[in-house]
């Protein structure tokens, strides 16, 4: 027979799943798979005639929940997922317990079960070996917003209008971060130019994964990086440091590649390193000088002059002088450049642009002047959110902080970062986008500010979210480190430790559940009475077999009159609580239970006072 409460609870869990589906990325096929499971479970529930139907529907919901947990790993959806799991277990309990309980009891029981399961869950999470994906991961979707594989004029300016978070960096403290004007978080290197736009060279297969990073030095400062879904598979980083996850590799161009799909939020750790990054010394390829000859004749003519007259470092200085000497303007709304000679148009006519215009024109100039150069896209800046009650501090980088800059190859220094935007709008690099656009009210009006009163709330929530992700950033590498630290030379005993730990955790869970087993109200009252009466045992006052409570109270009061008030109150409270009519019992249970508690305390105090007296007097009371 199907229990009505189980059916209602399953309807509730289906509603929670539907809520999560609404907030999921519909570009992912997994989302559609999850929707299919939810629809099937709903139909099964609507047509269910037997308990078996309900159970199968519940399993379908469980798998749909797992898929949604993969799609929405953030803290907020995580809480909804936990609530869904709780309701599912409650639905199972309601069905399998034969209708013996109400909604509150079932939810209570479900919470108890999940709490006692926590040690088991932690043990399994920590000790079961971490495995890599058994099958290659297909690119199943794309991030909603973010940088792209190519740099079109105006692309980053559009991105700058988006105030949503792009990434968070959580170091131990703010001092571990570079100064504000050095906060460049590189993502993608664009090294192909077709005369109008920059794009990345096509991937060359696994060989692109260039150098496995050296292991992190012991005790090095670590940062947690949390990256929102983005269209790029490359991960943001500062350009130096050692990934804690060995599955993350660095390419020859200084890009960081992880094992994840782009549709999910990614979390990884980086340890500080004293060594200069290897990609900085990687000699440029011939393609790093490629420039679409004839595409921008004025630029090429200028660069040709520099190439013939100046050394490479001086060509750099000449470019800086050009940008700083001419009336270039940093704006979110540059005039259109057209399809013909766009860089000429920007450098010699409009002179108004966003960071991609400056980076693109400068890199073009350098290549035309025979200095290997490339464009790097990523983020610059970010605002520090201090630690609070909910978690540690972090640097919040928004999509608004998207940025493009250049790198040039100087033989004695390797790849050197040059940001032409800093020459034109130094405030943008020092203090962020709003400062860079100071005074340009039309541009500032385009920037969304969000709701100011909501910011503290959202930041506190992000603190919590970071703490949650810090907890979950437990990958193969972290497991290796932890097992090495805990087990040392007995590392091979990991399985045995897991089994023993599970046995202990099971014993603990069973013991706790035994304690939590619901006892009838009368049984609880009797236990309280026994506990109260046991306080008199040191005074040699123990109920005799067959002795009623009133008789015992009379005997004890006669023997030790100081106990009489407490005993009388205890007896009255117990009898009223125990024998009250059913209707009144429930209504007055709290009041009577308090009265019983007060009587118990009174008795305990009296017994304690008497217990401090000489034993002889207690054992041989004077005859009345």
């Amino acid at each position, binding site marked *: 027979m199907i229990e009505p409460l189980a059916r209602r609870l399953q309807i509730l869990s289906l509603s929670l799943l539907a809520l999560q589906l609404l907030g999921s990325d519909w570009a992912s096929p*997994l989302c559609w798979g999850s929707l299919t499971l939810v629809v099937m479970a709903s139909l099964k529930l609507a047509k269910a005639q037997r308990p*078996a139907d309900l*159970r*199968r529907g519940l*399993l379908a919901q*469980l*798998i749909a*929940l*797992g*898929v*949604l*947990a*993969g799609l*929405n*790993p953030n803290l907020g959806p*995580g809480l909804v*997922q936990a609530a869904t*799991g709780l309701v599912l*277990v409650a639905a*199972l*309990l309601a*069905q*399998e*317990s*034969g209708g*013996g309980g109400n909604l509150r009891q079932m939810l209570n*029981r479900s919470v108890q*079960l*999940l709490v*006692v*399961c926590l040690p*088991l*869950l932690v043990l*399994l*999470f920590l000790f*079961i070996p971490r*495995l*890599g*994906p*058994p*099958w290659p*991961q297909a690119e199943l979707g794309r991030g909603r917003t973010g940088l792209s594989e190519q740099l079109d004029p105006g692309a980053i300016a559009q991105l700058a209008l988006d105030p949503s978070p792009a990434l968070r960096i959580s170091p131990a403290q703010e001092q571990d971060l570079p100064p504000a004007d050095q906060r460049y978080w590189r993502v993608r290197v664009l090294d192909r130019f077709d005369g109008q736009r920059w794009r990345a060279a096509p991937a060359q297969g696994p060989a692109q994964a260039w150098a496995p990073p050296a292991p992190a030095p012991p005790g090095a400062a670590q940062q947690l990086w949390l990256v929102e879904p983005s269209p790029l598979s490359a991960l943001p980083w500062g350009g130096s440091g050692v990934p804690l996850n060995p599955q993350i590799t660095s390419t020859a161009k200084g890009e960081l590649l992880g*094992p*994840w*799909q782009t549709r*999910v939020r990614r979390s990884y750790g980086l340890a500080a390193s004293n060594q200069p990054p290897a990609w900085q010394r990687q000699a440029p390829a011939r393609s790093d000088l490629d420039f679409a000859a004839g595409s921008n004749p004025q630029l090429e003519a200028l660069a040709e002059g520099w190439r013939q007259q100046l050394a490479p470092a001086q060509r750099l200085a000449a470019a800086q002088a050009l940008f700083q000497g001419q009336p270039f303007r940093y704006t979110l709304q540059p005039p259109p450049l057209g399809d013909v000679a766009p860089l000429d148009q920007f450098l010699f006519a409009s002179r108004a642009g966003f960071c991609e215009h400056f980076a693109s024109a400068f890199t073009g100039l350098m290549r035309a002047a025979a200095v290997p150069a490339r464009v790097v896209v990523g983020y610059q800046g970010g605002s520090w959110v201090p630690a609070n009650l909910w978690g540690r501090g972090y640097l919040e980088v928004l999509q608004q902080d998207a940025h493009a800059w250049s790198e040039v190859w100087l033989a004695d220094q390797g790849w050197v970062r040059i940001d032409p935007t800093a020459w034109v709008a130094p405030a943008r690099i020092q203090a962020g986008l709003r400062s860079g656009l100071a005074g340009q009210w039309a541009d500032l009006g385009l920037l969304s500010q969000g709701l100011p009163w909501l910011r503290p709330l959202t930041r506190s929530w992000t603190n919590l979210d970071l703490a949650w992700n810090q907890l*979950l950033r*437990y990958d193969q590498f972290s497991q290796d480190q932890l097992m090495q630290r805990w087990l040392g030379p007995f590392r091979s005993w990991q399985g045995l430790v897991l089994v023993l730990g*599970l046995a202990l955790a*099971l014993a603990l*869970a*069973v013991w706790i*559940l*035994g304690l939590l*087993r*619901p006892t*009838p109200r009368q*049984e609880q009252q009797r236990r309280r009475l026994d506990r109260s009466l046991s306080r008199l045992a040191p005074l040699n006052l123990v109920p005799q077999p067959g002795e009623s409570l009133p008789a015992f109270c009379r005997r004890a009061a006669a023997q030790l009159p100081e106990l009489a008030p407490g005993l009388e109150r205890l007896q009255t409270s117990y009898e009223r609580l125990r024998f009250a009519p059913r209707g009144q019992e429930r209504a007055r249970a709290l009041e009577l239970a308090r009265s019983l508690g007060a009587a118990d305390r009174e008795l305990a105090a009296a017994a304690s006072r008497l217990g401090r007296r000489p034993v002889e007097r207690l054992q041989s009371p004077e005859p009345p």
Partner: protein
Amino acid sequence: MREPFPDRLIRRHGGASHRLGLRTLYILPSGFGWLWLLSCGVLFILGVQGSSHGALLLAYLGLGLFLLAPYLTQFNLQGLELRCGSPAPGFAGDVLPYPVQATSRDQRLALGARFRRCEGDLAWNGSLEPGQQWLAVPWRPSQRGLQSPGRLRLQSSAPLGLFVCWTLWDPPAPQLVYPARRPGPVLELDRPQPRERHQAEAGADAQAGGSDHWRELTPHRPEEGLARLAWKQLARSGERYAKRFADPRPRPHLLAPDPALPRERALEHLSARIWQLAASGESYGLVLGNQTIAAGSGSAQLERCLAALALAAP
């Protein structure tokens, strides 16, 4: 009938009482439990493939519940004590309740009890509150006599349904089973058989001649009306008398099995006839071979006769 696996491997536990403990309880994952485990495996693969900690945690939580479930299910039965009641007699072919007294200190959820030899829908289902409670486990005997219902299987899969825990017990008290009630001809001794009865009844009517079958005369009172007035006596003696009537006392039925029928069939017909006579309050007796039960009526007579039928030699 051969018992299904794995019950046929389990040794028998008899005795008037049966305490459920580690030696008498058996536990295995239920079909739903295996599906649950499979779902946890699917979640694990989802978690590993998608590098999703959420799916992994869910898989581990499911596994944790699966590991915890056998203990919870066993505790739902452990400590329960079963005791045999005194089963009331009943008819073969009917569903009879077999009383089992259950004594428990704790609440027991979603139990099911059934005899292994019975068809699937005959079972007792319910929960037990602390204290003593009687379970009426239904079964359907097919033969008369002192019958034992066979092996009782008490099981539960509460509270999670992932494991099924059960015990097997052979309650020793047999139940007296009367022959099934099948209407049909029986032999009535000391009473004309149908053809003779017809002739006898016709003769009796002719002898009665429509006369009044009054038993005695008492002085007539005016409130008795003229219908009871004895006119003949009034005409003869001039005194007014009232007639006192009495129904003719029916002769008791003395029943015996019809020798023309197979023995068991004849007993079933007798069972039906006795039940019918008892229901109409008539008097009856029974002759079974050398055993004779004098005519009588009432529930004691009914039980005596049916018990004789139940235990009659084949």
